């Protein structure tokens, strides 16, 4: 007990004495843990609450059947367990044009009077009328239309009468997601694309090739006559939608499976269930995990570098304390515990800060999007999530301090008391090479060689930052290609809400990465400056100019940063590929610009500490070293 009190007291006093360092360490670890918390929180978040709110407000169906003929409807509407229905409604395919943008749409023919099941909720304007259509809100946002605008479909002009949300379909751009296409619950339950018999127009690409868009289709509602008026012999009406309300909504999946499994016809009905649609809507939110979890990984790596540099800078001070503890009878385990306690305490505190910040920030990224009404609310955090987050913080702290702690506990007491410190490394090849360089190069290269671990940490810092930047660039390239693909198919130019959301999150993670990397650069440079104080003063005593010394310190950082920036490019591409899985490579010039940009930023951040380091009073430093 006494030992625990001692360890705690020493750690607490040290934190108080070095408050600024403690704050930096907490910030570094909290950034990683907050990001992980947000990522984990998305596991538990579905858009259940917004979906259910929307479902209630729109008389949402339990099952939607997609039929190839209206005649198929009666067997469904009269089936056992069906309490109510609406439809069948004709679903015509068309190409919509607005303000230079165009996209594929499904136009569902509706009555001007409200439906008993699936009556979309207007968020603006009024319901369908002859010549006036209602556009699903996510699609309207992507297309950029408002109530009162005029759009053209298959060559005919229509007014935008209203904008609405529905619980009967997944929102743009994943309209057909949630449609049941597998025969068994164990199979692949939901499609990622519209069924082949959904009549999607074939579009000509510039190279003459014809492709069918099976994705990124928008939903509109029109009067039945307007919807059927969009058809033609070349674009026949092949789809009808029927919305079913069951006596027991929980039976929706079983109802759909039963009907799907007992048919072998290629034109048999396909189904969506409310559970499937809810799950698909949730994926819009959970998609952010693909950004946040790799982001948390990168931030954790940077946090390790931050802690390692902060701890490394004070190793000689720790060593003196270790010597004192040993001299008064501290065992190696007590010494190691003392060494670790401070950083572990700070890490756990940072984890709590990160958990709170992540939990509070999570609702910002769990907004359900324009497709639904209501909010997802505060995400649940399970005990396992909390353990994972605290575990990450402890791993970060241990990764940076365990080895120094063990080394300190095993080291010589006299050596620690005398503050001998670790002698700098000698790298003969570097020394010989550096003697051929101008003075800044000579000094810089020798500094790199004398503290190889710090140089590695510095390189790792740049590599992780470059990884993050390259990932962002790769994602932007992917998004552009994706949108360019839409242009090729539909002449589109529409924004993609899923991609937009990912890009926003990626930008936030990248800003955190860059901020942490900038802090790390400042830590590392300052640690280098402090470590080089004696060498720099001596060089100046021998005739080196202060500018040569500051340039040498900058060269040190550049020499470390250069391999990091180069290595960060492939690592970033690998990370992106792992996260996105079907990405496309960004142009080489973008990647080179990213690496150069990171290098320039690192150099810029190094200038001030390097100049300050070179302006030290020579006589004072040399006298202090001699004392």
């Amino acid at each position, binding site marked *: 007990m006494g030992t625990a009190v001692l360890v705690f007291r020493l750690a607490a006093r040290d934190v108080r004495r070095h408050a600024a360092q403690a704050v930096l360490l907490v910030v570094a670890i909290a950034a990683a843990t907050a990001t992980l918390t947000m990522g984990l929180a998305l596991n538990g978040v579905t858009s259940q609450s917004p979906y259910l709110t929307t479902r209630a407000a729109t008389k949402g169906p339990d099952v939607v059947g997609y039929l190839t003929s209206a005649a198929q409807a009666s067997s469904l509407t009269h089936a056992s367990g069906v309490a109510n229905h609406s439809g069948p409604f004709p679903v015509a395919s068309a190409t919509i044009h607005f303000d230079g943008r165009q996209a594929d749409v499904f136009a569902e023919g509706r009555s001007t009077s409200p439906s008993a099941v699936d009556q979309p909720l207007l968020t603006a304007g009024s319901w369908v009328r002859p010549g006036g259509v209602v556009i699903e809100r996510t699609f309207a946002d992507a297309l950029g239309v408002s109530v009162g605008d005029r759009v053209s479909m298959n060559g005919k002009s229509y007014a935008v009468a209203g904008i609405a949300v529905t619980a009967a379909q997944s929102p743009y751009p994943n309209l057909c997601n949630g449609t049941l296409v597998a025969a068994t619950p164990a199979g692949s339950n939901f499609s990622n694309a519209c069924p082949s018999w959904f009549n999607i127009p074939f579009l000509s690409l510039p190279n003459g090739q014809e492709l069918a868009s099976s994705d990124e289709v928008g939903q509109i509602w029109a009067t039945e006559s307007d919807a059927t008026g969009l058809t033609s012999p070349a674009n026949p009406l092949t789809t009808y939608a029927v919305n079913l309300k069951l006596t027991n909504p929980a039976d929706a999946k079983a109802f759909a499976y039963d009907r799907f499994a007992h048919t072998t016809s290629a034109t048999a009905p396909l189904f969506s269930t409310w559970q499937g649609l809810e799950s698909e809507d949730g994926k819009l939110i959970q998609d952010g995990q693909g950004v946040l979890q790799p982001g948390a990984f990168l931030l954790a790596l940077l946090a390790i570098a931050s802690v390692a540099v902060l701890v490394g800078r004070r190793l000689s001070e720790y060593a003196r304390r270790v010597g004192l503890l040993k001299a008064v009878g501290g065992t190696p385990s007590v010494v190691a515990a003392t060494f670790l306690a401070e950083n572990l305490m700070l890490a756990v505190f940072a984890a709590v800060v990160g958990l709170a910040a992540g939990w509070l920030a999570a609702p910002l990224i769990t907004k359900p999007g324009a497709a639904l009404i209501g909010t997802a609310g505060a995400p649940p955090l399970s005990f396992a999530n909390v353990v994972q987050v605290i575990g990450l913080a402890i791993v970060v702290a241990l990764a940076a301090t365990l080895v120094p702690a063990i080394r300190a506990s095993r080291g010589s007491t006299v050596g620690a008391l005398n503050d001998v410190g670790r*002698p*700098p*490394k*000698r*790298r003969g090849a570097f*020394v010989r090479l550096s*003697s*051929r360089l101008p*003075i800044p190069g*000579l000094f810089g290269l*020798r500094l790199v*060689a*004398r503290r190889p671990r710090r140089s590695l940490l510095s390189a790792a810092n740049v590599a992780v930052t470059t990884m993050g930047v390259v990932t962002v660039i790769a994602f932007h390239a992917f998004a552009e290609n994706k949108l360019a693909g839409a242009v090729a198919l539909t002449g589109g130019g529409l924004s993609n809400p899923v991609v937009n959301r990912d890009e926003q999150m990626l930008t936030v993670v990248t800003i955190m990465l860059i901020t942490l990397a900038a802090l790390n650069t400042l830590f590392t440079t300052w640690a280098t400056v402090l470590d080089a104080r*004696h*060498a720099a003063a*001596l*060089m*100046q*005593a*021998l*005739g*080196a*100019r*202060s*500018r*040569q010394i500051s340039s040498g310190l900058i060269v040190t950082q550049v020499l470390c940063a250069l391999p990091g920036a180069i290595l960060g490019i492939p690592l970033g591409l690998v990370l992106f590929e792992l996260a996105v899985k079907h990405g496309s490579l960004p142009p080489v010039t973008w990647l080179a610009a990213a690496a150069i940009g990171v290098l320039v930023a690192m150099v810029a951040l190094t200038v001030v500490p390097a100049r300050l380091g070179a302006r030290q*009073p*020579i*006589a*004072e430093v*040399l*006298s202090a*070293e*001699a004392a």
Partner: protein
Amino acid sequence: MNENSSGAPIVRARGLRKEYGSGSGLVRAVDEVDLDVAQGEALAIMGPSGCGKSTLLHLLGGLDRPSAGEIWLQGRQIDKLSERGLAQFRRHDVGFVFQAFHLMDELTAQENVELPALLGGRSPREARRRARQLLDQVGLSDRAGHLPSALSGGQRQRVAIARALANDPQIVLADEPTGNLDSAATLEVLRLFEGLHTAGLTLIVVTHDERIAATANRMISMRDGAFVDEMRLTGGTRGNLAGLGA
């Protein structure tokens, strides 16, 4: 030889003052010092710890700037030099020998000696040749590839002396050069200084060891930042350095 050489002094300081702090905490480490050192002279500055002798040496060598007063070396006023000018001055005109040696731990003896020559713009080959020559001169050619940690205190100080000579300075400034050495090593260092003096270099040595001071041409005593005594010597134990080893 060469003591009291005719002509202008190689080092001249007038009204030299160095202050630290302000108000009631003001400390005058060097207080209105006037000093002339002739070409080829060996000057010892003595005094207790904290009397300002090392500060004076730092001012004379351009490692620090005076609060007031003027310093002239070889007819050039150095207290008005820019940082760049001071760096050039330290590089070519003076050589320092410190009590704590101040060798780079990760460089071999030869590489330490090469350093000022490389700073002075000599080619690596020329710097290496000069370093070998100097190490030979201080009797350490067989230790050229050793790291400082593998050398004795005396050997380290001899490396430091060789380094101080790398750019052929006119003046060598030594701050307690034997303070960390045993008697045998002290003797080795003094013999080297004797050789430098004989070769015509101007030596200014700060020490609190009277035996070391006795080898100079002139000895100045300092107290509280000011000169309190000056004594011309006849060469003291020079020529009989072996007696110091006792």
